[in-house]
């Protein structure tokens, strides 16, 4: 651990650079960055851009591990630049590169379009059989805490693509759906409000689907939000096999209880205070 908070140490940032219009292949450029305790990789990159080389580019937004924009390969391991402290992973040298398994747009920016195309193709939203219900889903649906718990962890996914970068199957099979989209299939399939299970399972069980997974587990190890995509994929395999053997328990999506504002309040829940705005 870094004991002296005030102390500043020089760390060599070995940053992968690539400009498609100019470079034939990526090259590594080294920058000396003064690092203090608690400083994140993102802050280090900002230091380089402001003081050493303004042409360095990367993608970021929230700076607090929520938006999932700043996924990078940090010392050989995918992670978020904004919530990785430099001294947690580096002594005197730190390698920073774009996420593998993706084409590079420039420098540290991966092209995430293939991932989001796969994701969108799996209908990652609650699907209702009733078109009116689908278009006006503002009513309430009964769901127990236990049912919520079934998929809650998968809702924490921020689509940062770290799991996709860590996946050894995706490294050799670009058509493989990958951990993030498949985890989202599981997220919606076990949601009791959803009716799109069959359609998603058909896509997940196709040629480049769940059965390509070797269960290396790296996706779960690198996830900065603690999501377990490997577990989701194993659950999907189980669902598919049980469906094939006609052993799966069929459950109809829960019905909408009532429209917005038309419900009756549980008498044990106190009334809300009077409105202060728009009363």
């Amino acid at each position, binding site marked *: 651990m870094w004991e002296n908070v005030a102390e500043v140490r020089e760390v060599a940032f070995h940053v992968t650079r690539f400009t498609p219009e100019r470079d034939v292949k990526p090259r590594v450029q080294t920058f000396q960055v003064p690092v203090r305790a608690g400083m994140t990789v993102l802050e280090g990159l900002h230091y380089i851009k402001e003081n050493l080389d303004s042409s360095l580019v990367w993608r970021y937004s929230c700076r607090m591990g929520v938006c999932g924009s700043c996924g990078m390969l940090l010392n050989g391991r995918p992670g978020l630049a904004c919530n990785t402290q430099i001294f947690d992973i580096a002594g005197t040298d730190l390698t920073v590169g774009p996420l593998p398994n993706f084409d590079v747009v420039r420098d540290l920016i991966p092209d995430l379009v293939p991932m989001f195309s796969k994701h969108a193709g799996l209908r990652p939203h609650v699907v209702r059989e009733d078109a009116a219900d689908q278009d006006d889903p503002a009513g309430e649906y009964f769901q127990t805490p236990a049912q919520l718990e079934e998929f809650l962890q998968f809702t924490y996914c921020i689509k940062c693509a770290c799991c996709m970068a860590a996946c050894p199957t995706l490294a050799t*099979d670009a058509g493989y759906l990958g951990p993030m989209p498949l985890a989202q299939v599981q997220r919606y399939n076990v949601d009791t409000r959803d009716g799109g299970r069959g359609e998603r399972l*058909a896509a997940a069980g*196709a040629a480049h689907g769940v059965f390509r997974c070797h269960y290396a587990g790296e996706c779960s190890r690198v996830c900065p939000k603690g999501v377990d995509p490997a577990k989701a994929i194993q659950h999907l395999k189980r669902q598919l*096999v049980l469906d*094939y053997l006609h052993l799966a328990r069929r459950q109809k999506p829960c019905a909408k209880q009532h429209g917005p504002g038309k419900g009756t309040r549980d008498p044990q829940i106190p009334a809300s205070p009077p409105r202060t705005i728009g009363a």
Partner: protein
Amino acid sequence: MRETKYWTWFMAAGLLILALLGLHMVVMHLGSLTHLFAAHPDQPSVAQANSQARDASLFFTLSYVVLLGAGLFHGLYGLRVVVFELSLKPAAEKALSALLLVVGLGLFGLGTYAAFAAHGRAAGASPAVASVAGASLAGRS
């Protein structure tokens, strides 16, 4: 659905292999302790007489045919998965699947023929051995 079917049968074949190969290992390697399915307990499990007695038993012949089928499917499916990782074109994937199917069926046919030929020879050439084997199996079950 096709991949799900293959995967389900792959898992089922794995379970069959576990059971039948387990039985094979127990009979072959723990024979001196268990004398399981040993028509001649005074001789080792791998001795000619015991081997011939097992060949004469329809249970063993069938179990080896099933084990062969399960092993071939399990192994060739695994090979298919590994080769598919090389990002083949769809036509190449189809061709490989067809080739593996032909190879698998061919090997299964050859193995089944060999198993039943050995069974017929052992049971026909030496009725005494067959009867001893049958009695032994009946006695132990």
